[in-house]
């Protein structure tokens, strides 16, 4: 009993060992076999010769006695177990040769696949990198960023990075106490400082920040809680990139000095790992959150990073924090804060989602559609080819190739095509990612470049294999089912491709057209939005307008000097050649603010609705030359006087007049500023001028609110301002001159963020444009692929129906009748596809809504023009095979059996 088991085991072991050995030396086994058999035959021949046969007769007798040499060799090869691999290699060689012989077909398939796969790899890599990828920290699923949103920002679905409200240190302390929710929590905000004439972005965070992220310093150490107090020596931690680029990874950097412009020097105590820069690509330094800040003061744009205890859900946290805030407001807040809390209805938002998530998902869907369309095409092409090879396949079958063997052969072919396509597609995607990265980094300065990575490669290989499996075997299965391989049948009369196969093929085309239609409609809607956006009249002339920020506060401690310096700066700027106009205004920095402040005014003589605090407007603080510099037309009255006006003078834009003062003379109207909580100072002022509407918030976010301008140039000290200049010179030529003029006034004055408005204005559209062009590209690809698909199917059908068409033309069908017969065939397929596509679009365009501007998802123009375009192209694609059909000579067709 044991002995038999033991022998069985040995049996298996030996077979494995010999099989593996055989894999490595297949040639040796073949050679030895050949020698053996020849040796045997030689002996046998001699034997017969000795019996008296002639040499030739002996040879024949030897062979006869031996048996079928090749067949016996096959049996031997079977026993080696290497047959599968040898057969496979042989199939591949054969397939390669066949593909080389039909270059057109191979090229079409490979390019189709390459384009589709390339598009998908590109989008998916970007998606993966920006959205799906985990942060490179320990247990990233427990990391959250918590920030406030008020009702206004939440309703506008604004990007998380652009909220207004912030958090305070006392909040941080309250939340820190919630130890059942948080393992660790930290408070941070971003700040900008100038170091050696270049502006750097950094993080100001509590010491717990590094514990939340669970990172270790590359060099030195991180700061501690004690160093958050103002009495300790000021320290800074550098980011890895800054250490590498500015200090050439100097190992002795610890202890050296680091200085922001106009601030006391800091000591460098450590270098932070690069993983922290995934939070924001531009982070260059970390400084401690200073406790000197007023506890309840909310720093704008600050937020919490927290590591949740495992198992705690964001909803629980959100509710708990809201409860804490509500409690605090009821117990401890002053009436002012209380009212603000109620007004704003603050909520917590916790997320790590990327601002582009929706767009990328949409693009991925589009790319996927293109892939499907491409696969459909390829399948149809292969179907056609399989039919052509029907004869060859049936011969093979009759020679003994089983369905498995045939399947393997077809699989080899399609596998070679699919892998070629995948490789070329990867090359395409490398190019594609390169351009997308350029676009992305200009769009959102925080992202790092997306790369092809191993996961994507694996996915692509898997996809390619699956594709080749389907592509190779579906046509074969269809042919097999129709029985046309089992019998050798050369005539094309055997249109017995099976009704199933034909319907399948047609169904594929209809599906193709439907998807193309949906894509094209989507692209059309996006393009119309883009046009509408660019048609929006900004109301001012952004070209040639340069803006920069000047901070007086950090240079001059004495407030009384600020007015004089400001005037001197303006004077000096006017002296620069090429400068046409100089003005200044108050602003927070971003040229086109993506979030809005609204204020309220009461109008003398205009009663308010009950519950209304006043009319809502935006306020801008400017000087008298502002309108001239910006190119905003003055419609009535006058602009502000330079160097001071009587207090209480307003300038409004025409929207204000249209909306709130219809039929009244604006120049005698009086306004009073109201606070949003109700109540004002009863400080009535007068409107002195009306200007044109200017979209200073960007083209596609007009909320229709009018703008009220107030005079900033009134001898009040201003800690900093936005300098606005109209000039014909370029940024590179004028900025150094402006900087040096400033330095003449005071060596520590610095021109922050100089930029031209039209570039910023143009950039507002960058996101929209990028997506529109990408979707447009997909749509064009889809249309091309569908055209090829229709062409393929129709010309295949014409081939099949050669005889029938020949007969028709023989019995008297005119050229036109045959032409129209084929064209109609094509149009019917296209038509049904369009119908399905349009219906699908009704449903699918809903997802586009957030991207559209002034265009309805059911825009008639697009819904009409897209199908028409597809119809025209498919007409063209149908025309070519139709022409081929017409050219069929009835004699030849009938003769070729």
């Amino acid at each position, binding site marked *: 009993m044991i002995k038999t088991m033991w*022998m069985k085991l*040995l*049996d298996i072991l*030996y*077979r494995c*060992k*010999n*099989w593996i050995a055989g894999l490595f030396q297949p040639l040796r086994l073949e050679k*030895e*076999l050949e*020698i*053996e*058999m020849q*040796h*045997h035959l*030689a*002996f*046998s021949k*001699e034997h017969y010769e000795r019996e008296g046969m002639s040499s030739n007769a002996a040879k024949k007798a030897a062979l006869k*006695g*031996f*048996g*079928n*040499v090749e067949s*016996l060799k096959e*049996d*031997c090869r*079977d*026993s*080696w*177990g290497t047959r599968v691999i040898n057969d496979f290699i042989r199939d591949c060689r054969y397939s390669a040769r066949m593909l080389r012989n039909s270059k057109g077909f191979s090229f079409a398939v490979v390019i189709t696949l390459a384009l589709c796969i390339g598009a998908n790899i590109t989008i998916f890599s970007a998606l993966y990198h920006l959205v799906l990828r985990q942060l490179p920290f320990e247990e990233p699923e427990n990391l959250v960023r918590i920030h406030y949103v008020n009702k206004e920002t939440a309703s506008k679905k604004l990007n998380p990075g652009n909220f207004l409200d912030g958090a305070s240190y006392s909040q941080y302390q309250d939340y820190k106490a919630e130890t059942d929710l948080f393992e660790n929590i930290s408070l941070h905000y971003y700040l900008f400082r100038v170091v050696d004439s270049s502006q750097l972005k950094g993080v100001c965070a509590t010491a717990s920040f590094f514990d939340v992220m669970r990172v270790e310093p590359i060099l030195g150490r991180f700061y501690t809680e004690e160093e958050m107090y103002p009495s300790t020596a000021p320290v800074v931690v550098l980011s890895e990139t800054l250490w590498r680029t500015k200090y050439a990874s100097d190992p002795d950097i610890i202890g050296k000095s680091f200085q922001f412009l106009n601030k006391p020097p800091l000591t460098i105590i450590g270098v932070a790992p690069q993983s922290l820069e995934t939070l924001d690509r531009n982070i260059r330094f970390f400084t401690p959150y200073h406790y000197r800040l007023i506890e309840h003061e909310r720093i704008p744009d600050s937020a919490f990073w927290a590591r949740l205890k495992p198992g705690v859900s964001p909803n629980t946290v959100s509710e708990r924090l809201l409860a804490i805030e509500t409690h605090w407001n009821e117990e401890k807040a002053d009436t002012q804060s209380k009212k603000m809390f109620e007004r704003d209805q603050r909520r917590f938002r916790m997320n790590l989602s990327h601002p582009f998530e929706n767009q990328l998902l949409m693009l991925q869907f589009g790319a996927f559609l293109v892939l499907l369309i491409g696969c459909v095409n390829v399948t149809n092409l292969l179907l056609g080819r399989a039919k052509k090879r029907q004869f060859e396949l049936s011969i093979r079958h009759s020679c003994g190739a089983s369905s498995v063997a045939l399947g393997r052969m077809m699989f080899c072919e399609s596998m070679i095509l699919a892998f070629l396509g995948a490789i070329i597609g990867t090359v395409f995607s490398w190019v594609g990612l390169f351009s997308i990265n350029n676009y992305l980094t200009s769009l959102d300065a925080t992202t790092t470049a997306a790369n092809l990575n191993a996961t994507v490669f694996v996915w692509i290989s898997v996809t390619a294999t699956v594709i080749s499996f389907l592509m190779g075997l579906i046509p074969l299965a269809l042919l097999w089912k129709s029985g046309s391989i089992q019998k050798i049948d050369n005539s094309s009369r055997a249109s017995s491709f099976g009704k199933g196969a034909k319907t399948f093929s047609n169904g594929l085309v209809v599906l193709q057209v439907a998807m193309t239609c949906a894509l094209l409609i989507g692209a059309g809607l996006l393009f119309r939005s883009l046009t509408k956006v660019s048609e929006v009249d900004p109301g001012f002339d952004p070209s040639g307008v340069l803006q920069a920020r000047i901070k007086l506060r950090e240079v001059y401690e004495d407030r009384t000097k600020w007015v004089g310096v400001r005037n001197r700066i303006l004077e000096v700027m006017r002296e620069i050649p090429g400068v046409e106009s100089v003005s200044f205004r108050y602003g927070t920095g971003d040229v086109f603010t993506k979030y809005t402040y609204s204020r309220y005014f009461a109008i003398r003589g205009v009663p308010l609705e009950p519950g209304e605090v006043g009319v809502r407007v935006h306020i801008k603080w400017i000087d008298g030359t502002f309108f001239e510099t910006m190119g905003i037309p003055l419609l009535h009255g006058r602009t502000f006087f330079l160097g001071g006006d009587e207090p209480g003078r307003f300038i409004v834009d025409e929207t204000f007049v249209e909306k709130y003062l219809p039929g009244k003379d604006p120049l005698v109207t009086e306004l009073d500023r109201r606070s949003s909580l109700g109540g004002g100072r009863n400080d009535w002022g007068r409107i002195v001028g009306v200007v044109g509407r200017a979209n200073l918030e960007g083209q596609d976010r007009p909320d229709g609110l009018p703008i009220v301008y107030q005079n900033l140039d009134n001898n009040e000290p201003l800690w900093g301002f936005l300098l606005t200049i109209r000039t014909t010179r370029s940024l590179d030529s004028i900025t150094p001159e402006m900087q040096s003029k400033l330095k003449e006034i005071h060596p520590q004055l610095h021109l922050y963020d100089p930029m031209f408005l039209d570039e910023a204005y143009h950039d507002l559209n960058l996101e929209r444009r990028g997506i529109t062009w990408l979707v447009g590209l997909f749509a064009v690809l889809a249309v091309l692929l569908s055209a090829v698909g229709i062409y393929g199917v129709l010309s295949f059908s014409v081939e099949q129906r050669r005889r029938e068409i020949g007969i028709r033309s023989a019995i008297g069908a005119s050229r036109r009748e045959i032409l129209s017969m084929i064209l109609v065939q094509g149009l019917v397929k296209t038509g049904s596809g369009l119908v399905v596509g349009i219906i699908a679009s009704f449903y699918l365009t809903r997802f586009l809504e957030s991207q559209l501007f002034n265009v309805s998802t059911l825009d008639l123009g697009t819904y009409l023009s897209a199908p028409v375009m597809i119809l025209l192209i498919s007409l063209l694609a149908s025309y070519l095979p139709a022409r081929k059909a017409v050219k069929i000579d009835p004699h030849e067709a009938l003769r070729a059996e």
Partner: protein
Amino acid sequence: MTNHVFPKGALEMLIMKVLSNGSHHGWGIAQKIHLLSSEALTVEEGSLYPTLSRMQQRGWIKGRMGLSENNRQAKYYTLTSLGKMHLKQEQKRWEELAAGIAQVLKSND
């Protein structure tokens, strides 16, 4: 010379028996079987080789190239110890089978 159809497995047994007395190449094995059976058994020559191949894969025999009597290259086979074990086993089974069949044939019932 009557040729009997070889029952399954018998060929392997005979090959192993022949090789137990010394190593031979393929032709030699066929000759030996023919001789030892007093010319009652003739192996269909070609079919020898797939069997030899199978037995080699299972480790019952080992093959090695060498120079044969007529100065040609030939593959010589030897029986392995595993093969010896199998030979004994097969021989025993065959003898039991033959005895059983003979017994049934002799009976008069």
